[in-house]
């Protein structure tokens, strides 16, 4: 199977060369056991993240979207090793993180930080702003007391607060200001990678725009790389260079941002985009809206084949039985679907031709795949850096 990747024209501009690559996630899996009884016997598994692969270039913003329970937050946390991945690899600048000891991971957190969704719950109410933002520096032994104070005050200014706020408590701030404190804390150690998990969803729209602009400015200033996790497709489009769409623990589409909105390939993406309400009465009247039936199935017992098939309007027999691989449709646009939309005939021919070279053709997969093997299938198809 790896041979097929070389036969395919691999033009993945955004994942770029190995030089600019900051993070590479290969076949990441995070499973949570469901236990029962006093012996904590395992009775099932929540496949929260089930074989996700992507690479991020330095300075890039990757948007991670999907509905609740699709595994986007778990992916973000597993990258930072806040959840121990069940399988797969996470490499930061070529360094494997999943096998590191706790102490080593802690040391590496200097390089990667997180901004949380809830600006109320993510700041300790009994600590002053100064010690919240200075905390990471203290833990990592950066500078002495005076230097740290200076840094914190600089940071406060950088995120649009006043250095005089140093001695205040979190409750004295509004939601937007607290999120700025959360951002300052994440930046305290000058990380390379920031995972922002729904950083603006708890904020009012007028304040949302302030925080988005701030994140944008900081990215330029500190040359940050973001993984931006959000469910708001408008916000994600605004901030992202590339966007990954997840559904039930799987990466179903990965594309340059604008292209995803113009030309979604996966029917789930199409439906997701059409469901976003648009603030224009005429447009919202005219526009074709695809209303998906039913709910997202449970990740404990995901549907066979393509996980989206029970809700998909293009569903055929093959979707029920065969899990579609993540396929390269050119221009850095990947999607996992048996009935790709918005793909011209020539691209389709090319993709099918390279598919034939694959030792694991669709027919062989006709039986429901066994979790271990079948789910690892998309691995070699990830945006490659060579």
């Amino acid at each position, binding site marked *: 199977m790896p041979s097929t990747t070389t036969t395919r024209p691999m033009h993945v501009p955004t994942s770029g060369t190995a030089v600019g690559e900051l993070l590479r996630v290969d076949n990441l899996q995070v499973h949570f056991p469901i236990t029962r009884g006093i012996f904590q016997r395992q009775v099932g598994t929540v496949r929260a993240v089930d074989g996700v692969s992507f690479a991020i270039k330095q300075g890039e913003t990757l948007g991670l979207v999907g509905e609740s329970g699709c595994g986007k937050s778990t992916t973000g946390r597993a990258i930072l090793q806040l959840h121990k991945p069940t399988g797969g690899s996470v490499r930061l600048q070529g360094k494997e993180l999943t096998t590191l000891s706790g102490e080593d991971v802690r040391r590496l957190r200097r390089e990667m930080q997180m901004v949380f969704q809830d600006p109320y719950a993510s700041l300790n109410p009994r600590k002053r702003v100064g010690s919240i933002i200075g905390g990471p520096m203290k833990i990592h032994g950066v500078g002495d007391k005076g230097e740290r104070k200076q840094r914190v005050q600089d940071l406060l200014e950088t995120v649009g607060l006043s250095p005089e706020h140093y001695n205040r408590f979190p409750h004295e701030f509004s939601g937007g200001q607290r999120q700025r404190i959360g951002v300052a804390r994440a930046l305290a150690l000058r990380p390379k990678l920031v995972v922002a998990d729904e950083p603006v969803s708890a904020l*009012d729209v*007028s304040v949302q725009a302030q925080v988005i602009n701030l994140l944008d400015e900081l990215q330029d200033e500190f040359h940050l790389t973001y993984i931006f996790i959000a469910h708001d*497709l408008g916000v994600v489009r605004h901030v992202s260079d590339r966007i990954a769409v997840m559904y039930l623990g799987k990466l179903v589409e990965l594309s340059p941002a604008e292209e995803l909105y113009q030309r979604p390939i996966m029917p789930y993406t199409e439906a*997701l985009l059409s469901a976003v309400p648009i*603030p224009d009465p005429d447009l919202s009247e005219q526009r074709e809206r695809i209303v998906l039936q039913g*709910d997202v199935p449970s990740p404990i017992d995901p549907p066979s084949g393509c996980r989206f098939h029970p809700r998909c309007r293009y569903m055929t027999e093959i979707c029920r039985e065969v899990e579609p691989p993540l396929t390269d449709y050119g221009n850095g646009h990947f999607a996992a679907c048996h009935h790709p939309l918005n793909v011209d005939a020539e691209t389709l021919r090319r993709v099918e031709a390279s598919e034939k070279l694959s030792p694991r053709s669709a027919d062989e997969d006709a039986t429901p795949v066994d979790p271990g093997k079948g789910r690892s299938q998309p691995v070699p198809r990830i945006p490659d850096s060579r």
Partner: protein
Amino acid sequence: MKDLRTQFFTQDGVVKAVNGVSFTLNEGEALGLVGESGCGKSVSALSLMRLIPQPPGRIVSGEVWFDGRNLLKLKEDDMRKVRGNDIAMIFQDPMTSLNPVLTIGRQISEALELHKGMDRSAARKRTIELLELVGIPAARSRVDDYPHQFSGGMRQRVMIAMALSCEPKLLLADEPTTALDVTIQAQILDLIKRLRQELGMAIIMITHDLGVVAGIADRINVMYAGYIVETGTADELFHNPRHPYTLGLLKSIPRLDEPRKEKLVPIEGLPPDLVDPPPGCPFQPRCPYAVERCVPENPSLEPVVPGHRIACWVDVTGSANPQVELAAQAV
């Protein structure tokens, strides 16, 4: 609703949540109440239902005329008959709004027995019909399930079924889809639209999401700091917004129907403190178009074109005031 004022008397002072809100709603009409948190949109709706917790809250003045009766003057017993019967409400969080220890069937039929005087079996039959109406699959068997056995979207359907049980004339929907995923939100909005057509009820839709109201409301009230600052038909408001706050809101959201912008245009500053609101126009400290007059005097809601009213001294898009144009360029 006429000149409604609701205040909360707290330790830190009097929170002026709603400051003289007036509007009318016709039979079968859908009205959107839009604004950010703390703008008074939910408090207006709760005041209408007389559900303001008292103390600390109090409806200081105003009248709410519904079908020829002033709801604020009704006896508590009479008001209870109005609630659920004539006016029903659905809330943002369908989990905390349902009783977790009662089956959903029981919760819906209770209202039917109470308001409609149905007996148990008739109420149960009607409950199943209602659950089918709101699109719950296998309603006959699910009627005996408990709330935790339903997903978020399904719970919201149950809430809607409950609200519809007595065929209300007015449905108050307070952020009914905010807690839901977009695909589920689309389902619920479609359901509300369909039911409104079938049952001909009026709707007040309270939301912070301009996209949601655009798809559903005939008329929209934009609220800020307890005042209505702009009101008009949905078409007018979205195509010809005139209050600086509405303009700011529309500009600050990244929209899928427009090309991607280099930078978002946020509204600078923070929403005002309602204990100690700024003098004059409440939006004045954040307003890029503010003129001298805005500080001492709070503008009232005045028509700019028929059916479209704004509370602003500076008609931003209408006038050719050079100062305004300068400010517009700066934005």
